[in-house]
């Protein structure tokens, strides 16, 4: 094999999780090299660099030969959830400074009947909120010029606060941004250099002042943290000779150039989890499976996402701190961020979650041992028992370890004894089994949210296991829901990073554009609106291409419009055919809208409709379409005592590399690979395909235990 990678498609993908940093390199032929390092929370680039050096060395690739560097990070999520963003000042139109305090929350479920209902703190305190005299009408007309003296006074007041970013949302700026832009210039001139001033018309130019404001200020809040992180990352990569552009995963499944990811940080909120769902969809498609539940379990969190008919669900409103759903997705319950994101549910529980006894009750998480000190069995100073320690005690993990270090069953046993078994008065193994079961129940909560809670029966779906801890728990989790199929892709332990290898560079841009369809399609109508729409699309496309810094010839641009009946609020997004914007193409979109409306509501209506939004999505396809394969190699076979159904049993242990395509694996057994360990309980069997993907199926009615 060629010792160096000269293929420009040589790609490095990195996924920084709460516990592990996964690094995957592919040379474009499908050959994959993998490293898993401990995340370094103080400066995540450190652990990441270690992993990058490892894969480069192992694959014998020179840093200069890396053509593409893709990156998923939970930075934006963590900053928002842990409230560690920069201090932000918020400026809006005079008369509306209560906007954030008032909010637009729905009171649902437990809040509705709560006499002690306490409203949440506004995302920016009143002391940091300012109103400026100015006014633009709903049609974009300047009704009251921006009071520049007042703006200057506001700038001085903001400067005195010492904030690190400013968010501006003025009324109707989505139709005319002139006041926002002028105000931003005035503020920049009077604020210390480097304090970013973010305008709502640049971040999300759509109607609805509250959602536009929160989206903007969250962008301001996270942006500087993201910018300095990506700058540091880029510098360190150049330091070791990697000059490839850095692309960051965005929440809807594409990747953004680093500069854009910093400027539009809210688009990266679901960066890592989205990669997992994309990976699951792609793996499923290969096997002809269109209905999937992606189950991504790492050290700190677990996520479940739904893929129906081959397509991951996408939402257009993310709720930060939302209630009623683990991913915070229920509308009206948190601070809304209006960006497209892959729909998923998350629980704060993973392999590193700490087990503890609370007044006689065993609990797991939400505290995580993380990477430092890590689970007790890592021998890195952690003394508290984690889910990983329990899995090791039960025989599910190989003490030979993964991620390059040994696991200590003694330390795991001792931690569980001291902190779980003794307080509960049970033996160590039963305590470990209880920790494992509780972890499975918590994972179940994430799957529950995306299926059962929506009235969707998960039993017809295939569970796709991704992430270091997922293969150990996935089949048991499937059993909880009566799911009969589990897909374990090759390199499942670094599944999200593998998904990143194949993510397309993509950007979406949209703006409100209100015009009656009749003014766009009729031959006799004025062509002004049609010209304006064409101009709006041209502007959006220019902006999107500039975002991607790509050659227009390589980019696929799709256009769509929001369309609704005049007088209604909810618009459908319908595609607009490529080519010049003509009465014919708009009419075509209108027909599609009528059809969709009829399908959705059962109302066959031909009332006057209007265009509400112009939207483009520009995609620069990633080089390789091939999925990575696990190289079969010399494998090991052995046996180990594993806790199953209330007793230890001697079961076969196979290494994944040693499995030949088509060779049947029958539970109970354990299949190990460097980054994870697959537990195949009794009653399950499956075979790897030619890429090494293992599809397990419940063999109903064939009890493996004589007693079952």
């Amino acid at each position, binding site marked *: 094999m060629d010792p160096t990678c000269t293929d420009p498609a040589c790609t490095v993908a990195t996924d920084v999780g709460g516990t592990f940093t996964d690094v995957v390199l592919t040379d474009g032929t499908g050959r994959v090299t993998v490293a898993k390092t401990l995340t370094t929370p103080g400066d995540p680039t450190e652990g990441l660099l270690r992993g990058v050096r490892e894969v480069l060395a192992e694959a014998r690739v020179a840093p200069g030969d890396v053509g593409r560097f893709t990156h998923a990070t939970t930075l934006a999520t963590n900053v928002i959830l842990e409230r560690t963003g920069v201090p932000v000042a918020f400026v809006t139109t005079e*008369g*509306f*400074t*209560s*906007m954030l*305090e*008032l*909010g*637009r*929350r*729905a*009171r*649902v*479920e*437990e*809040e*509705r*009947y*709560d*006499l*002690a*209902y*306490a*409203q949440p703190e506004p995302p920016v305190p009143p002391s940091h909120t300012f109103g400026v005299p100015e006014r633009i*009408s*709903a049609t974009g007309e300047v*009704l009251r010029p921006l009071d520049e003296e007042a703006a200057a006074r506001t700038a001085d007041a903001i400067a005195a606060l010492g904030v690190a970013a400013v968010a501006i949302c003025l*009324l*109707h700026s989505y139709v005319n941004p002139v006041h926002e832009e002028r105000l931003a210039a005035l503020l920049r001139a009077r604020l210390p250099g480097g304090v970013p001033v973010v305008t709502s018309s640049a971040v999300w130019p759509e*109607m*609805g*002042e*509250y959602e536009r404001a929160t989206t903007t200020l969250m962008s301001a809040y996270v942006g500087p943290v993201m910018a300095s992180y990506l700058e540091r990352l880029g510098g360190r990569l150049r330091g070791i000779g990697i000059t490839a552009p850095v692309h960051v995963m965005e929440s809807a499944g594409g990747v953004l150039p680093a500069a854009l990811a910093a400027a539009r940080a809210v688009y990266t909120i679901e960066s890592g989890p989205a990669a997992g769902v994309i990976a699951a969809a792609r793996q499923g498609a290969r096997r002809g499976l269109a209905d999937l539940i992606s189950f991504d379990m790492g050290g700190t969190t677990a996520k479940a996402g739904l893929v129906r008919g081959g397509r991951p669900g996408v939402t257009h409103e993310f709720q930060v701190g939302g209630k009623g759903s683990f991913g915070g997705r229920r*509308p*009206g319950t948190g601070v809304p961020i209006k960006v497209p994101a892959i729909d998923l549910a998350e629980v704060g529980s993973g392999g590193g979650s700490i087990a503890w006894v609370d007044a006689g009750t065993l609990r797991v998480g939400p505290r995580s041992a993380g990477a430092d000190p890590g689970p007790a069995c890592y021998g890195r100073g952690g003394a508290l028992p984690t889910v990983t320690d329990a899995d090791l005690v039960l025989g599910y993990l190989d003490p030979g370890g993964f991620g390059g270090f040994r696991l200590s069953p003694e330390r795991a046993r001792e931690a569980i004894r001291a902190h779980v078994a003794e307080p509960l008065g049970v033996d160590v193994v039963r305590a470990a089994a209880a920790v494992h079961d509780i972890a499975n129940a918590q994972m179940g909560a994430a799957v529950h949210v995306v299926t*059962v*809670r*929506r*009235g*969707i*029966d998960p039993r017809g779906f295939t569970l796709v296991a991704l992430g270091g801890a997922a293969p150990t728990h996935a089949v048991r989790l499937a059993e*909880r*829901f*009566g799911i009969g199929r589990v897909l374990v892709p090759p390199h499942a332990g670094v599944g999200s990073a593998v998904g990143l290898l194949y993510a397309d560079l993509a950007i979406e841009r949209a703006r409100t554009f*209100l015009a009656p369809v009749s003014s766009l399609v009729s031959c006799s109508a004025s062509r002004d609106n049609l010209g304006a729409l064409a101009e709006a699309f041209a502007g959006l496309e220019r902006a999107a291409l500039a975002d991607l810094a790509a050659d227009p010839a390589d980019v696929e641009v799709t256009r769509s419009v929001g369309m609704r*009946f005049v*007088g*209604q*609020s*909810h618009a459908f997004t319908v595609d607009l055919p490529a080519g010049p914007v003509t009465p014919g193409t708009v009419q075509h979109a209108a027909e599609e809208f009528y059809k969709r*409306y009829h399908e*959705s*509501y*059962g*109302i066959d*209506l031909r*009332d006057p409709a209007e265009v509400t939004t112009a939207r483009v999505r520009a995609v620069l396809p990633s080089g390789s379409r091939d999925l990575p394969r696990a190289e079969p190699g010399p494998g090991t076979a052995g046996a180990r005592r594993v806790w199953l159904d209330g007793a230890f049993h001697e079961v076969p242990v196979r290494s994944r590399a040693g499995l030949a395509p088509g060779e049947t694996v029958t539970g109970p057994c354990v299949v190990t690979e460097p980054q994870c360990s697959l537990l195949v309980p009794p009653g399950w069997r499956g075979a790897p395909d030619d890429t090494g993907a293992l599809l397990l199926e419940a063999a109903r009615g064939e009890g493996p235990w004589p007693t079952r």
Partner: protein
Amino acid sequence: MADALTAEILRNALCVAAEEASIVVVRSAYSTFIVEGADAAAAILDARGRLVAHSLSTALIQCASLRSALPFVRRAYPEMRPGDVFVLNDVYQGGIHANDLLVFRPVFVGGEPAYFTGTLIHVADLSGLSAGGMASDATDVYLEGLQLPPVRIATADGPVDDLVRVLAANSRTPDKLVGDLRALIAGANVAARRLEEIIAGSTPSGLAAGIEDYLADTERRMREGLAAVPAGTHRGEYALDDGHTVRVAVVSDGAGTLTVDFDGTDEQVPLPVNAGFSQTHGGVMYAVRCFVDPTLPMNEGCFAPVEVRMPRGTLVHCTPPFPGGGRFGTVAAAEEAILSAVTGALEHGGVAASGILQAFSLSGARRPWLHMSFDLGGSGAREDHDGADATGALFGGGRNIIPQAEPIEARLPVRVEEVSLIPGSGGAGRHRGGRGTRTVILMLEDARVDTRGDRLLRPPPGAAGGGPGRAGGYYRRRADGILEPLGTKATRQPLAAGEALVVETSGGGGYGRPQ
């Protein structure tokens, strides 16, 4: 496990069907108030009229209306055919007032209606003294708008056009009315389709058994919660702005059964202050639910352990021809009376009153346009915390149901100049009441305004020595900037172009002596 899972999927599928119906109504309706803000109510009921599931963020009084009205529909139409859809608004048959249209569609099993889907929204206009149906001088129900007993509005062949034409002819905004009606029918149809899918997937008997278990389980949990209300008779009362008083006795057996008796409540009045019985019942359920596990699903299991006695001809149960449109002041008074009765019986008693929903409607003087909306008052403080600012106290809604300034201005000839919290409007106390809001809406065309508020002349009192909230009100801001009070129940008051409507909501009462 498998059976428990099946049961849970079924329960959620029923709730999702109701939720989907409400989303369909909101998305396909035409009234600004509905499409830019308020949720639509949607429910699934069984042939016995029991509430099975309802849309999540719906005000409970609307859900209660659907539940109360269904038996009247069945009585009026002993024979129903697949595809039939019925509509009503009659306050004496479970409805609310003229503008709140209730739509029902039966779902058949074995040739008989086995379930009903229902939807409800406040439609744009359906005649009456004032556009939008908020005339506070309507001395009888006929002045509130067109009265609809249960009537068939659609069959399997489509809408009953004769009736649709009558309705359109009785609306100041016929296009919006017909659009809203179509949306209600679409919502009921979508829920019916989902229900048919559920029946197909789980068999009729599987669904029936699943529902029995669901309701029984909820009722058991409801009774467990209600058992915490000390045995005995607990009394409370609350006076409206006009001095009329709602009086209640909450009788608990200490084992999970309550009787809520409004005996002693003042007589009904010939003004839209009274509440139809369905509305009072909804208010009772809201107040009672505040004392049980808040995560309980809302279905018949919650209603079953609570007997409600509403003497006919009183404020809480109006009879023909007394109007019921302005019911929320009375319903809120009933809720406040129950809260004070029950908290008074508990160890840590006392509760400060809240500012309530304050409605208004603006309509064009020269051409037909309509903006119906409301603002929310501050919540009362409690023993251990401040009251929440301007939220949906006493009906459980949030501010998400109030349209924002941008879409209002994009649709209507008005300009929203201010929406702000009023500093210091929460009642003083060891814990302060929640603050009220001020909204200023400038008219760009000549218009008329109707107002409908309460707790403005008698602001929400504090508890345990706390002060009352600041009284809100409605004002006309003249072109010269001078504020003139409008009545708290003003009707068709002129607002010329250049004048503004100012709506201030009351703050909540404070708790405990200020320190």
